[in-house]
């Protein structure tokens, strides 16, 4: 357990430290800033699992040994949490209030002084806000990645994930339960500590004029919160303001927009190149394969695209179900404060409790009933269920923060005009929370891929049963991986990552831009 949480916190610490440094460099150097931001934004919206097989091949075959396995695990978790934290820090640095920045210049603070006295403290609440989902994300991937197989060999690093796996495969269910209990206890304690830390950091480091993160937006935006009002705002509402990001670049003056647009494109190109770069080992595999294998790979591409399509459909179903439940539950909870106080920490804890660890046991207990109900769709149901429980939290939490952060004037207007439930949702609540929904949904979609990667082909999940779907990219990948067919693994990963990057550039980014441009509830409040 210590080994697992140790790995999680090590990678988070690494992300924070590097984020501070890179954030500062980005402030000083405009070219670097544009490349850094575009790169992180693209990579953030790419599911970690895209890298998974590729990274495995690289670390296990090119480095090898225990170090290779350890590094593979840390690298995977790192890529799961780092973008979010980097972007959060960058946003915080960009939105340090002008007057405080001027004071630091005035006092001639050097790099060290500015960082320790101004930038780092200012970024703490934002990091804290990102820690809870990052922790959940990291726990998920770490339990998945502690046990992995390439070819005929199974690699594992010591940790709670591999322990539970070993116990479950050995049929030691009692011990597996005990281990789960330990995991649960640790997760509960850590989640509660992180919650405390988040609230503390907002109280301690949060500025009264918390609209500062919005002040950089164009248009007639004014600081809304007087210090008096701000103190009355609950920590969670304040926290919400750190969880969502405005687009800091929009503070640029118009003439620079053209130039930065080019740099942004350049950044996206580099992101693309970077992805291809980490597929280096794939290419080494591919270049060593004979022509006839190439021919085979190319000829299977149409079928591969069908596989990708099938998985996108699954991801879509999971995302829609998660979103619909989140929309109702989040709104309902915000109206029932007492229930909310009890339920939200429970949901947070459940989310940080990695699904792959307890899923086999859940499977064992529910299988007979589910099979009776779903017949031949039983496996499909479990795969979707695994996807759902490993991802629901992200969209729920993000949306809930959005609802909590809605200007109180909006609640009064809704009440005053006696709007019906549907009118409230469609005209006000959903548009108000749209940026939160988009960012939550992006995380949900990414993690859904993770869920599919485990669920679509899970040999010997319980009592000799194998959980598998009929058609799906992730199953195909897992099978190829298990057979040691590295050429196919590389090829599928390449196709998948290209599709995912195109999807993220064309769709996710567009949606985020729209959210930041049009659906900013704070801009609906005009206060000088």
């Amino acid at each position: 357990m210590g080994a697992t949480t140790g790995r999680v916190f090590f990678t988070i610490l690494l992300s924070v430290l590097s984020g501070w440094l890179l954030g500062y460099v980005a402030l000083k150097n405009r070219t670097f800033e544009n490349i850094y931001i575009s790169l992180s934004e693209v990579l953030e919206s790419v599911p970690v699992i895209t890298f998974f097989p590729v990274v495995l091949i690289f670390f296990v075959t090119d480095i090898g040994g225990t170090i290779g396995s350890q590094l593979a695990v840390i690298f995977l978790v790192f890529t799961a949490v780092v973008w979010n934290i980097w972007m959060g820090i960058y946003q915080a640095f960009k939105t340090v209030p002008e007057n405080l920045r001027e004071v630091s210049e005035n006092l001639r603070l050097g790099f060290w002084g500015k960082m320790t006295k101004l930038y780092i403290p200012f970024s703490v609440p934002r990091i804290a806000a990102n820690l809870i989902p990052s922790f959940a994300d990291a726990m998920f991937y770490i339990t998945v990645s502690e046990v992995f197989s390439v070819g005929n060999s199974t690699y594992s690093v010591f940790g709670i994930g591999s322990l539970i796996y070993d116990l479950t495969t050995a049929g030691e269910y009692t011990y597996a339960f005990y281990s789960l209990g330990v995991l649960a206890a640790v997760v509960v304690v850590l989640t509660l500590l992180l919650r405390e830390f988040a609230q503390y950091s907002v109280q301690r480091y949060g500025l009264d004029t918390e609209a500062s993160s919005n002040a950089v937006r164009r248009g007639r935006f004014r600081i809304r919160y007087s210090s008096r009002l701000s103190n009355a705002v609950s920590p969670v509402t304040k926290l919400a303001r750190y969880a969502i990001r405005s687009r800091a670049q929009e503070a640029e003056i118009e003439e620079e927009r053209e130039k930065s647009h080019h740099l942004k494109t350049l950044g996206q190109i580099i992101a693309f190149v970077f992805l291809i770069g980490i597929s280096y080992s794939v290419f080494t595999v591919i270049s060593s394969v004979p022509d006839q294998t190439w021919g085979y790979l190319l000829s299977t591409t149409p079928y591969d695209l069908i596989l990708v399509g099938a998985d996108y459909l699954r991801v879509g179903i999971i995302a829609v179900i998660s979103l619909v439940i989140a929309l109702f539950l989040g709104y309902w909870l915000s109206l029932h404060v007492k229930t909310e106080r009890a339920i939200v920490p429970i949901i947070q804890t459940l989310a940080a409790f990695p699904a792959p660890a307890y899923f086999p046991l859940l499977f064992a207990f529910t299988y007979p009933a589910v099979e009776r109900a779903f017949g031949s769709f039983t496996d499909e149901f479990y795969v979707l269920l695994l996807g759902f429980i490993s991802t629901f939290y992200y969209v729920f939490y993000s949306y809930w923060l959005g609802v909590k952060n809605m200007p109180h004037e909006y609640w009064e207007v809704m009440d005053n005009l006696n709007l019906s439930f549907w009118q409230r949702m469609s005209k006000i609540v959903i548009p108000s929370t749209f940026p939160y929904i988009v960012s939550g949904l992006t995380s949900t979609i990414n993690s859904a891929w993770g869920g599919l990667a485990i669920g679509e082909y899970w040999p010997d999940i319980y009592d000799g049963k194998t959980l598998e779907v009929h058609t799906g990219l992730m199953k195909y990948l897992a099978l190829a991986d298990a057979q040691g067919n590295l050429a196919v693994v590389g090829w599928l990963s390449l196709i998948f990552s290209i599709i995912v990057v195109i999807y993220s550039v064309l769709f996710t980014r567009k949606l985020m831009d729209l959210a930041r441009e049009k659906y900013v509830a704070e801009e609906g409040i005009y206060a000088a």
Partner: protein
Amino acid sequence: MDNELIAIVGPSGVGKSTLLRILGGFIKPTEGEVILLGKKVTRPTPKIALIHQSIATFPWLTALENVKLGLKYRNLTKEEEDSIARKMLELVGLQGFEEFYPKQMSGGMRQRVAIARALAADPYVLLMDEPFAHLDELTAEGLRQEIYSTLFSQDTSLKAAVLVSHNMNEVVELSDRVFVLNGGPATVVGEVTIEMERPRSPRDQKFQEYLDLLYKLLTPVKKKVKEG
């Protein structure tokens, strides 16, 4: 009395905005009750519309769509909604701006949109919580000069308006009656009826007398020494 504009004034923190929200049913009073046309007010209703100090419009809706929100509870046809909303925008002087988004408008125009939205709901009472506080003085003055005739024009259903304000000039300029809150716990320490013809000029001698009277009532209340 019909078409009356009442002002509530008092020092900061005395509970003016809270009183306004109790009148609107947004906050439940611990004692007493609010009665509108013989019926007890227990929750917010479009018949008592609130205008916020920090001007609240919805940035994803055009001016026209913002105003239509006020009509939703009446279940009208699309055509009826459209025509009433247009009429209300015209009433507040925003014809031609129907398709504009709040972002494209000045603060004064946004507050007009909020007023039109409130009036579209066909209210009997309008509650205004420092409605001009976030506007620059020129814009505020312009809006002040029009507001009385706008609110009580024959196109609205309004019977009364309640204004909370820190600005005594504004209060004397607009109100028919003023309630002064002071002390802690706050009580009504004065009720002043302003009997002046409209439009009222601050240069008028009577205007200054009313101002003096209000400021006198607003001076800090000395704590009573306990007797006995």
